[in-house]
């Protein structure tokens, strides 16, 4: 399935879902759950929390399904909800100290785009991502891993497309520096 096909499929599913076809929601869930979980785990750095947040995201999605505007890309809308769910979670729960690095099996499930994979192997890349500031990490995940364009990244993060581009580029530069200096094992 090409990128364009996938976008069209998502839009068609959303329209069907809004029309009362709940089976479309099940398919949407199956399609988007891995990406959402990867993104939320990249923000929360906890697999269990990420799983909970995915469910919470879909609950809010169900309640807010009327707000999706047919014809518009689905992912900025969906990831906008997901990000907000994460921010609500962070506000409502006590911060826990980041005293441990995630074990290899806990690493986010997001596929890694070829240019990112050339940097280093998967676990080292995710450990390096953890060291980025949240703004840059989000931009890197959304653009380089989830392959959203900068306009969509800006829509999710509430920033201009140009700002999203700068954050993503600086994030990648910082990742290269971290990996080159060997601050995480490769």
């Amino acid at each position, binding site marked *: 399935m090409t990128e364009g096909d996938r976008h069209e499929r998502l839009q068609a599913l959303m329209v069907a879902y809004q029309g009362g076809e*709940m*089976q479309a929601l099940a398919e949407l869930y199956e399609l988007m759950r891995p990406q959402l979980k990867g993104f939320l785990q990249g923000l929360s750095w906890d697999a269990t929390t990420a799983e909970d947040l995915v*469910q919470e995201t879909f609950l809010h999605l169900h309640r807010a399904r*009327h*707000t999706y*505007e*047919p014809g518009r890309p689905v992912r900025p809308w969906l990831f906008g909800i997901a990000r907000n769910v994460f921010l609500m979670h962070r506000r*409502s729960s006590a911060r826990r100290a980041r005293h441990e690095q995630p074990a290899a099996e806990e690493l986010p499930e997001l596929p890694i785009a070829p240019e990112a994979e050339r940097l280093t192997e998967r676990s080292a890349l995710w450990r390096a991502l953890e060291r980025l500031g949240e703004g840059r990490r989000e931009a890197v995940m959304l653009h380089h891993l989830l392959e959203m364009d900068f306009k969509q990244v800006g829509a999710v993060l509430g*920033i201009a497309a140009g700002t999203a581009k700068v954050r993503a580029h600086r994030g990648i530069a910082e990742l290269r520096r971290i990996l080159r200096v060997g601050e995480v094992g490769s």
Partner: protein
Amino acid sequence: MKGLGGLPERLRHEVESDARPVRPLAPAWVRLGWVLLLGLCIGLVVPALVGVRPDGDALGPFLAWGAALAQGAGALWLVFLALREAVPGQGLPLGIRLASVLGGGVFQVAVGVATWARLGMPEPGPAAVAKGMTCVTMETAIGLPAVLLTALLVARAWAVRPRWAGLLGGAGAGLLADAVQHLICPVSDLQHVLIWHGGAVLLLSMSGWLAGTLVERQRTRGERSATPLAPG
């Protein structure tokens, strides 16, 4: 319900309890039409009832109706931003939001200063506080329907940044109210305009922000009380 077996239990239950088709929200510019309609009604009815300011001729059409129309347009822009902000993935960047809110405030001040200068820089008259209180009450009352309508339109969506949606909507309602107040208020000294008219705009803006804060807290409280969900 067929085919939902792959969904987690809580989500499945939620879906099964509400599986009705929904009508997608109209685009922001369409929903703005309701606010435009209300603004036109207020802008025509209030001056007709209360009377246009007696020094309108001295002010000239540009600084009287022209300034009011420009403020009205600015108000609609702010409400449009609020309606965009109310839909995930459609909000505009922080720079535009900030510039728009601040720009609205600056424009309100600029209209006040220009009016004061045009009318010969009048000094505050007697009973300044009483007149000020009358204006704040009047302007707030004029703006309240716009605040409520905008709040209703925003509440029907799902703002990812409710405080911003509220602030933008409240500021839009404030600027709209000030546009009308500018047409009817006979007091033009700078102190009166900046403190009392400006104060009303600030009050309406903050009421919108407060409404957004309450929505955010309610959502956060709901998230906190939610039981952890079993993986799907």
